């Protein structure tokens, strides 16, 4: 059965870095593009992020995600290029739409930031097992309940989709037409809701019993099956990342 994790199981230097350092990197990478909003600098940050994806052997997995965000990007370019308040210099025209230079420059910056944001998260999510990430956060004091919600959603949603198709089957078996034109499909959707909701509630109740049985609410200190991520350069990397952040802020304020 599928689950919704995007983790790609490969062996690379990036995979070996501990989840928290990667999380800090995501934050830094996004922050930098706002602290120093020049095209050249943002391109440098993006290039570095892409380099990490390449090093993590997961570059091709980020492409479909960027593809999805392309729709957003195109609409930004059109809207900003056309409507940006400082519009003065005409750059080019798309049919009847005049695109202005100022707006285009801003849109380009925004686009670069979005792509960088997507790629930075990609570095974290594509190279980190979700349970490793959540375990590290729980170790740092996050509530195990919140951690459980994150992890279970990844598995339970595909299960709900599978359940929906079972219920559809049961209803088709009793003569309800679900194949055919749009109206038939919409009509067949409504009787689906009752069993889906009730079954989910029922499963949820039984699952919470199962969690109780497995001591989820036990008071004592929990242990972890997997050793907490041991990455010997973790601390140094974190210090470097923080220094970079401070340097960027100083640069921005001073210059």
């Amino acid at each position, binding site marked *: 059965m599928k689950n919704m994790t995007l983790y790609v199981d490969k062996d690379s230097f990036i995979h070996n870095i501990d989840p928290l350092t990667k999380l800090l990197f995501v934050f830094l990478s996004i922050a930098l593009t706002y602290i120093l909003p020049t095209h050249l600098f943002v391109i440098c940050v993006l290039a570095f992020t892409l380099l990490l994806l390449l090093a993590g052997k997961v570059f091709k997995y980020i492409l479909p995600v960027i593809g999805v965000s392309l729709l957003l990007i195109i609409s930004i370019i059109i809207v900003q290029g056309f409507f940006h308040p400082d519009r003065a210099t005409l750059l080019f025209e798309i049919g009847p739409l005049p695109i202005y230079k100022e707006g285009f420059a801003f849109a380009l910056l925004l686009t670069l930031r979005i792509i960088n944001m997507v790629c930075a998260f990609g570095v974290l999510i594509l190279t980190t097992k979700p349970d490793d990430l959540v375990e590290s956060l729980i170790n740092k004091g996050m509530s195990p309940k919140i951690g459980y919600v994150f992890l279970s959603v990844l598995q339970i949603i595909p299960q709900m989709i599978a359940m929906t198709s079972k*219920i559809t089957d*049961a209803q*088709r078996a009793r*003569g309800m*037409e679900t194949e055919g034109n749009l109206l038939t499909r919409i009509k067949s959707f409504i009787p689906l809701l009752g*069993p889906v909701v009730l079954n989910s509630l*029922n499963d949820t109740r039984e699952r919470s019993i*199962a969690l109780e*049985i497995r001591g989820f*609410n036990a008071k004592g200190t929990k242990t972890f099956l997997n050793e907490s991520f041991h990455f010997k350069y973790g601390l140094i990397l974190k210090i470097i990342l923080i220094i970079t952040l401070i340097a960027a802020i100083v640069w921005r304020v001073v210059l």
Partner: protein
Amino acid sequence: MNSIRVENLTYKYPNTDTFALDGISFTVKKGEFVGIAGMNTAGKTTLCFALSGLVPHFFKGAYGGDVFIGDMDVLTHEISDITAKVGLVFENPFSQMTGAKFTVYDEIAFGLENLGIPRDEMHRRIKESMQFLDIEALGDKNPFSLSGGQMQRVAIASVIAMKPDILILDEPTSQLDPRGSEEVFRVVENLSKEGMTIIMVEQKMEKLAAYSDRILLMHEGKLIDSGPPADIFSRADLLNFGVVPPVYTTVAKALHLKNELTGLYPISLEEMPASGITNGDIRTISESLPLTKTAGPEIKVKDLQFSYNKDTPILRGISVTLSGEPTAIIGQNGAGKTTFVKLLKALLKPSAGELIINGTNTKDTTAAKLAGTIGLIFQNPNDQIFKNNVLDEVMFGPLNVGQTPEVARLNAEKMLERVGLLGKAGENPYDLSLAERKMIAVASILAMDTDIVIFDEPTMGQDARGKAILKDIIHGLHAQGKLVLCILHDMDFVAETFGRTIIISNGQLLFDGPTRIAFSEADILHTARLEQPHITQLARKMGYDGILLKESELIQE
């Protein structure tokens, strides 16, 4: 030292009028294996909840009396304190998976992490319990990718890894194939020998009799009797409580094989004498019942193949013609039985091969259009029920296939009466028990009056009375000239009810023919992880060299 002490336990679920548990008292010694028998409304599951602290801490309601686990009072302790000592495994394997772990190995670790078990000890225990349940090969798999039977074994492994003092199992084997459920019983017996206290609710009385030290007989929330299996199953009034004794006991009663010293009847295969039935005592009843219609419905299957993806074929070329007498489809968990009937119903399209139903190829039609011809009763009634009134629910299918409201209502009421639920026509299906919902699902398909009726594991969770109703329904449908197909794990029900049997294993048809011959094919049964019916094994042991299928075939003087 008592492991469990229950004193005058009384409990009522919120918003109900009747007591689910009514003045129950008993004690259980450490290491004892206690079976709980009773019909579906007896309160067995509620008792399991009360012993694990879920009643009253999780399910609120009116609670009286005392439950002690060791010297711990359940009422004044929190669930987490109780669950450190009591493990519970229940019927539905799917909802026992936590959903937070991505491999079976990690899933088993979940409970141990919560208990704060040191890492080395954790690895040791996980490996041990995986070995116990024979699931070592599944360690790296995602729990949700497993079959129901495999998932149930993971659920049991997860609980026993926590090494509870007391293990409670509420019908843990109802979804397993015969061999799988036998394996679970053996594992549990070993745990009991090592000193773990076992409480098990089960509908398979032969198993309960063979493994339990003591049986608690429950009825309508009350504890009727408690004693060794031989005492309980020798009671003359057992049927009043909806419990049918093991087939060995029934046969022994018929043959007057009472133990002279104790006045009790044998309850297991081992206790039965190795002689006593000769070929002259058996009068085999003809398999094929007379047909009222000559040209009945017919399904032709030609080289049927199916797979969700190319690497893992589910069905590998099945050819068979189905018509005439009721046919049982048997085989191990994950053999492809459910996929097969879904293809018949055009819910799935074949990857290759052809399916011709009464002359129509399923490629040219939809499941909804076939609804008037084939009725399919799903394994899980919850997938099917969506009206908030029983009568509306049963009328939904008939209206869809073009019956007028008057006729649909008449049919619906007739079928509800047949499954014994006419009195509940006005209730909300979700207020009824799972076994009752299953019967509603049956009624809602029967009311459509289709030529072909397919059942997917109808006996799951049904007590003796429910099984008797189902048997009547199947014979009745046949007498009306309808074709009945039925997927089953209950071999005794197959032997009792079906003249023809199909064995499917690993996506292939291993056997097609009379049930009596099916159960004589030892090699095929072994490959498909099946067993002979209990009565067949018994007759063999007592000297009959044929295949005995029904109690009624044994001539009684």
